[in-house]
């Protein structure tokens, strides 16, 4: 029943699209704005299975692989930064006083506006794309990890201190285990801006990638490529998000004892 209810809006959207598309196509069979599902299916299938004439690549898979690699590297850098700086800021009061205001200010800079600076620093290649994703997602992730550390009940820290734990022991045995699930939540929330920055980076200068393809074929209004690509990106993001949630639930059962997870 829940599955059926959940499907209704999707079906409604598809139905309205199909109606609008066939109306335009009956007026002009070569219309590019709202291609039929069949056209989109054919194009998508071709991009997934037929090597491109000029490069010999299977366009869809090359684009997907390159984009996911950039996304993974960018988010990986963000996770490392979030762990090191987040725990330092959350756990060490002096670090917090020194860095928290700076971080709060930095996280408010829209990364797209400092693109020329990123270009000069990281060049125009892969590094710049990974850097844009990291710059766009790391500050918020650092802040949520720091908050997760601050949320740990003070009593726990006091207790292990009385038991004679060193700072390193407190971090690895008390703080880290409780931060993991919160880190994954931050990662899931960071996925959306990460995709946005990935696609912006690929639109600016690139030779492959999901965002590159969309902006390239926009030059001749090839909606039969763009719409399936958008659906594909949505699906990828959804799958990654679900996979992270499942992973987190499986590994950190204790973090999901109360309430429902979305």
């Amino acid at each position: 029943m829940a599955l059926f209810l959940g499907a209704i809006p999707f079906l409604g959207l598809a139905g309205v699209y199909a109606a609008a598309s066939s109306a335009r196509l009956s007026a002009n069979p070569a219309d590019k704005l709202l291609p039929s599902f069949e056209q989109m299916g054919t194009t998508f299938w071709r991009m997934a299975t037929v090597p491109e004439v000029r490069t010999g690549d299977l366009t869809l898979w090359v684009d997907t692989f390159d984009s996911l690699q950039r996304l993974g590297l960018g988010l990986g850098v963000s996770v490392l930064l979030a762990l090191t700086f987040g725990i330092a800021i959350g756990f060490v009061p002096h670090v917090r006083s020194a860095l928290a205001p700076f971080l709060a200010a930095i996280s408010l800079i829209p990364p797209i506006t400092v693109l020329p600076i990123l270009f000069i620093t990281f060049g125009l290649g892969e590094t710049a794309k990974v850097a844009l994703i990291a710059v766009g997602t790391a500050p918020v992730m650092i802040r949520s990890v720091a908050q997760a550390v601050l949320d740990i009940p003070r009593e726990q820290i006091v207790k292990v201190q009385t038991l004679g734990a060193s700072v390193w022991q407190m971090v690895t045995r008390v703080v880290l285990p409780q931060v993991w699930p919160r880190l994954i939540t931050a990662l899931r929330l960071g996925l959306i801006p990460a995709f946005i920055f990935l696609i912006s980076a690929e639109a600016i200068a690139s030779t492959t990638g999901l965002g590159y393809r969309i902006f390239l074929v926009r030059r001749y209004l090839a909606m039969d490529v763009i719409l399936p690509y958008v659906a594909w990106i949505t699906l990828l993001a959804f799958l990654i998000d679900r996979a992270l949630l499942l992973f987190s639930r499986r590994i950190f059962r204790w973090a999901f004892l109360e309430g429902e997870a979305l």
Partner: protein
Amino acid sequence: MNSNLLKTTALAAMLLAGAAIATPAQAQEKTSFKVCWSIYVGWMPWGYMETSGIMDAWAEKYGIDVEIVQINDYIESINQYTIGEYDGCSMTNMDALSIPSGGGVDTTALIVGDYSNGNDGIILKQGETLADIAGQNVNLVELSVSHYLLARALETVGLSEPDLTVVSTSDADMVAAAATDDVTALVTWNPLLSEILAMPGTSLVADSSDIPGEIIDIMMVNTDVLADNPDFGKALVGAWYETMALMASGDEAALTAMAEASGTDLAGYNAQLDSTEMFFDPATAVAFTESADLPQTMEFVATFLFDHGILGEGAPSSEFVGVAFPDGSVYGDEANVKLRFDTTYMQMAADGAL
């Protein structure tokens, strides 16, 4: 619960319906028309025609209403025309063939305004001649006239695209990209071109004056709309050549207004005009459009588009979309003519018959 669901579904439906209401331009007699343009040296007169009232005066003469709308993004303006939001739009011969004509919208070249005669160029940071481009990464707006210029220029030195790597780069970021060490070769257009050439260590190795008359800037209009409303064509052409006469006579007020609208000053605008072959006189525009070189150019363009897979999904060859010329000859499929070069209205202007 259920009513919420219904609301959500209804909302989604409305959103999509809202996006889809744009219906193709209706071909019928009407009195109100909209054309669009974007900033480029050869198209600045369109903005001036709207603000100076020249367009309104000519539209009034024919008892119609013409609105000239500036759109900030060039490709977006062509897309808007293609989906039927506008009756005409300024674009190059190449983009006309690939976007509206390739998309089944029958399009007529109403006013052949100018061709690029140095406004598009290839810049190298390492090397002095075009042949040095081999093996480099070349930053350009992929599938644009820059890409076409590169392909044509490479032929002249016996190279082809696989000899280098094309890196698609947004024109908005071209100047910033040019400033980085990663970028060693690029192809772009004015005013970006002159801005990048002003940087030390850059040299211009080829430009569009090497292929004169191949990158043509045209006011394209919907063929059906024009056929049903000849007055629309007459008003546009009349207003255009009145403005051309002002420019040719060096009217400082008009030229300054155009310069300022394009973000430069009179001297800067004149410098850009120097590398643009404007057809101030309708007779020269007619002669250019009727010349035997144009079919040859369109064949180059169609071949380039087909080679890069832009002519559309079902295109079996570069001759998939037909292009008609003033003498009645057709390049490509005669049953699928979607781009027409028509000198009728420009001829009227040349004869003083408007």
